[in-house]
């Protein structure tokens, strides 16, 4: 029997994988991909809660799924802008390594 907790655990592990990617990797594109993993982990737990919380008509909570739809839209826009910034940065500095971009570092 699959419980709500199983989905939450999978979502949590996926979030931690994305978090570790942001902390450990130095390639900006990989960091952006890890951010996507974290966003999708949040989506998975939202959809699991939506399925768990059935209303009086016996259907899943569709407000949550509309929210997930918005998250996916905003994430797609975020990826487009982030990749454009990476391309502009690569043109200026010829690198995508975060270690080489430290002008603002204190």
């Amino acid at each position, binding site marked *: 029997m699959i419980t709500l907790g199983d989905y939450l655990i999978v979502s949590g592990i996926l979030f931690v994988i994305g978090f570790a990617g942001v902390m450990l990797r130095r390639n900006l594109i990989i960091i952006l991909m890890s951010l996507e993993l974290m966003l999708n982990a949040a989506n998975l737990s939202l*959809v699991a809660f939506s399925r768990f919380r059935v209303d009086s008509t016996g259907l899943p909570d569709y407000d949550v799924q509309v929210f997930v739809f918005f998250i996916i839209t905003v994430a797609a826009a975020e990826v487009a802008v982030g990749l454009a910034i990476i391309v502009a940065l690569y043109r200026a500095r010829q690198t995508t390594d975060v270690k080489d971009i430290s002008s603002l570092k204190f």
Partner: protein
Amino acid sequence: MSPFLFWIFALLTLIFGAAVVINRSPVASVLSLVVSFLGLAALFMSLNAYFIGIIQVLVYAGAVMVLFLFIIMLLDLRAEEGRQINWLASAGGLAVALILLGQIFSVVGHLTIAHKAFPPLPGSTIDDVRNIGAALFGNYNLPFQIVGVLVLVATIGVVLLSKREPR
């Protein structure tokens, strides 16, 4: 959905998600991310969220990943060559991630509703596209239009960002 299929797709998602972080070549990372997102779409469908699953395949595994691949091709990135790793910083990052993982496990373990199975749905078919559409264009009409403006702003911003400055 049978527990067997759930664990197959959950393992697929997690293993290829970990491969995204572990792989040294960016192209291998992107392809792992595609497989991970396909597994995630299957998990969404196992939760009877068919529309979200389809959107996941179309938007993420389709559009966003093509964008990533295209940028990697454009920048001609190679696999990171063996630069020395800052072991102290890596260990610190890994420790923070593991502490977060332990915290998530303890929170889910103490959540009483986490041990309950999902309630059954009334029929074998559910009309989820119609219901999401009704919510989207009824209750959430204003946020939907604001998201439309946001996507427009992002499009204009990307064009401006990638325009070459005249010298």
